[in-house]
């Protein structure tokens, strides 16, 4: 059960139950819908971008604890970041959750995102943790089609 405790840390359970930046954003100018066809999870991202910066970000989701908590933490991390910084953080996050199981990532480097390190022990849940991020990137690239995790 240790890996389960690492995956479902209290911070994650808390974000799942009381997600930050939850609900539609009134003045958004970028949006995208993410979908995981494997499990039917859906996630909508709303962004207010000004001068290449994320001025505001909110989301609505129906999905598992990992996808909801990950999107919630992500919104808190991305608010105020530039588009370039957001893309860099996405790459970093992907590395964190896909590092070989057992390898210890440098947690300091990841700040708030480090709580998701436990996902690397659960390859089937990587898509859950990255759904919010994929959706943000699709919104920033102004893709109109729905993004899927497949």
């Amino acid at each position, binding site marked *: 059960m240790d*890996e389960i405790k690492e995956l*479902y840390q209290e911070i994650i*359970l*808390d974000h799942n139950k009381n997600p930050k930046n939850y609900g539609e954003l009134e003045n958004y100018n970028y949006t995208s819908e993410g979908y995981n066809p494997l*499990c*039917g999870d859906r996630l909508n991202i709303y962004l207010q971008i000004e001068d290449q910066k994320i001025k505001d970000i909110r989301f609505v989701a129906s999905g598992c*604890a*990992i996808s909801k908590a990950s999107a919630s933490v992500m919104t808190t991390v991305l608010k105020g970041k530039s588009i370039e910084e957001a893309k860099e953080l996405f790459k970093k996050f992907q590395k964190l959750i896909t590092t070989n199981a057992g390898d210890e990532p440098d947690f300091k480097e990841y700040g708030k995102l480090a709580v998701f390190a436990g996902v690397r022990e659960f390859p089937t849940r990587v898509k859950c943790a990255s759904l919010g991020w994929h959706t943000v990137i699709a919104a920033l690239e102004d893709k109109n089609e729905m993004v899927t995790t497949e």
Partner: protein
Amino acid sequence: MARCDPARAIEKKQCSGCLIMGLLTNDFRTAEKESKAGDRKFDVDLIREDFPILRQMVHGKPLVYLDNAATTQKPQRVIDAINRYYSAQNSNIHRGVYYLSEIATEAYETSRKAVSQFINTKSPNEIVFVRGATEAINLVASSFGKANVQPGDEIIISHMEHHSNIVPWQILCEERGATLRIIPINDRGELILEEYKKLLSEKTKLVSVVYVSNSLGTINPVKKIIELAHQCNIPVLLDAAQAVQHLQVDVQELDCDFLVFSGHKIYGPTGIGILYAKEEILQEMPPYQGGGDMINSVTFENTTFKKAPHKFEAGTPNIAGAIGLSAALDYLQNVGLENIIPHETDLVNYASQALSSIRELKLIGTAKNKASVVSFVIDEIHPHDIGTILDREGIAIRTGHHCTQPVMQRFGVPATSRASFALYNTRDEIDALVSGIHKVIKVFSTRP
């Protein structure tokens, strides 16, 4: 156009009262009629020894395999039959004049006879080997559908179909300008037969329904569904992918026109499945795929086809699969459905009762007549989180929409968790599931 009124048609032919009563009581589990429990001793511990995979540990815990509606495990007899075929009999069938080809052809055609006997068809010629239930439905949609469905026609399916019994008909309807009509379900997950009767009309070209629902476990009143359709001369296809391993299925008694199932859900290998169709219908149907083995003669000007079932088996078939399936049916019949049915009924009742006692849990699919499937949701805990935590306890269940998204929409849930049982499962395993679910609830109730 005058609607075909099945209730009226019944009145003409027989006592409508009896039939309607039958519809409402929903009481025709064919299996129960022939149940002779006690004829042979059923020892689940001995059964488990026949399935090598069940001996393994997962995450340090004994494997508790409760995803049998997705696929069943294979007994040693099936594994050995496939091994024997590739070790000693492998060759291509039907055209070889040498020893090995004769043996392989004999084994393949013997398997067709075994399937024929298993579901009691009039003739082995009514059995077509396909890849699985999905391909069987696609074959009927493509061949029978294109020959018989015209613009304005209708095909009836139900709200609890697997995607494999929705999408092929949608594609056909789109191509032909026909309409798909849906039999609704009630809150227990049972078909509403009164609504079904209203859907039947002269426009209906086929009724295609699931015998046992893979996501709800409901055993549908297929005999009544068939009787009603036949009053209007409408053929019926039964998706028996979740039925043949749990119930005694007799196609002549049911009088279904088509029946499909997959080998891998009945203890056989993947990649082999069965289409049964009444011979007179099958002979009339145009070929599905063209190629070798399905022809009598080929010239560039003209090709003549073999008779069914060979007309529908183009190319080298899954010979090892057919042989493996035959071994699986042998195994199942040796244990005896008359012994399996009471055991599995006990499991599904025990599981329903045990899970209902968990306050936070709600069962999805509470039909009076159920087989081997228990679907549930837990307050504020997503099925995938449940599945992940149970996996670490060695328990394999399925979480998601189970390829029945309309069922999820009907019950207003994005997904469910599903435990499904086979002949080798035990009450102890259900106890392990229940204690696993308590662990899930504990993980999620931890608050800072």
